[in-house]
């Protein structure tokens, strides 16, 4: 394994780590309140590793709903990774399948978004992506364990912590505006995500917006290329 690109990947994860720790602490505390043990919290964060669906799961468990409905809800919440994984696949054409199996297990909204903001470093360099993702996942697992153990002490709504992840996503979005096409796709996606969110249950709006707005982007580029 290429050590230097692994280390570079870890460094690139720092903003994610900062964003994950308070959320993971909160998750650990809430999960304990919902009756999960610290070990169960750690295992869920290690193997599921998908924030929104985990919060929903403990919410449902604490309401007495268990098993299949939670698994079905989890599937639909995390279906959005389908498109992120499709996008990342473009940059790992020569990577062996077991390595892709490991890398894709650790893919989250945040690690995906940071990865595509650093494509020259990421492209065909699994150690870099692995460093980025393992550091992020350790923050998620470690933070949740800390939250589970110290559930009465920590208070995660202070020091602007609720805005850490929104600020991260704003910056990552800005980094993606590479042309006027991208700008218009952002405007369209922004408007339609709010419409879809208002009209539809759950978080279907992310998947629908992504398909619709990237389709519009593709059409814009095709029309533009013809006009050239």
């Amino acid at each position, binding site marked *: 394994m290429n050590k230097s690109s692994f280390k570079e990947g870890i460094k690139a994860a720092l903003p994610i780590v900062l964003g994950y720790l308070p959320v993971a602490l909160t998750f650990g505390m809430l999960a304990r309140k919902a009756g999960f043990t610290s070990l169960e919290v750690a295992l869920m964060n290690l193997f599921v590793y998908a924030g929104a669906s985990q919060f929903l799961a403990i919410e449902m468990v604490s309401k007495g709903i268990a098993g299949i409905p939670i698994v079905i809800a989890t599937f639909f919440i995390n279906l959005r990774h389908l498109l992120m994984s499709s996008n990342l696949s473009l940059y790992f054409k020569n990577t062996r399948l077991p390595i892709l199996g490991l890398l894709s297990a650790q893919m989250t909204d945040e690690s995906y978004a940071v990865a595509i903001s650093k494509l020259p470093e990421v492209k065909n360099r699994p150690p870099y992506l692995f460093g980025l993702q393992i550091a992020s996942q350790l923050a998620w697992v470690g933070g949740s364990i800390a939250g589970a153990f110290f559930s009465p002490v920590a208070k995660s709504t202070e020091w602007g912590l609720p805005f850490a992840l929104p*600020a991260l996503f704003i910056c990552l*979005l800005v980094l993606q505006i590479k042309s006027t096409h991208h700008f218009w796709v952002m405007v369209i996606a922004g408007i339609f995500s709010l419409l879809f969110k208002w009209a539809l249950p759950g978080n279907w709006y992310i998947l629908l917006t992504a398909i619709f707005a990237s389709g519009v982007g593709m059409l814009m580029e095709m029309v533009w290329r013809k006009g050239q």
Partner: protein
Amino acid sequence: MRGSVLGLILGMAVVTYLPRFLPMAFLSRWVLPEKVKMGLGYIPVAILSAIVFPILFSDGGKVGVQPQYLLAALPVFIFAWKVKSLWASVVLGMLIYWGLAFLL
């Protein structure tokens, strides 16, 4: 460790893993048509917009306005555009959000 919880975790892990893994496994092996690649190129900006705007324009999970989020977001947008630093944007956003709590 309760068996029912272990089952729940495994079930959630499997259904989360498949959409993460399958496109990576198959699409990386296929030669994609130019149009599909073009569309995939807009996925990042489309997904990030679909994450950011509903965060900024939401009030308790519903579409609405929460001034603290919007007012903190605007300077972060401008700062991120000029400076392009993830770290600094996150810290600035947290500071402004924290400061606004005293003003609003």
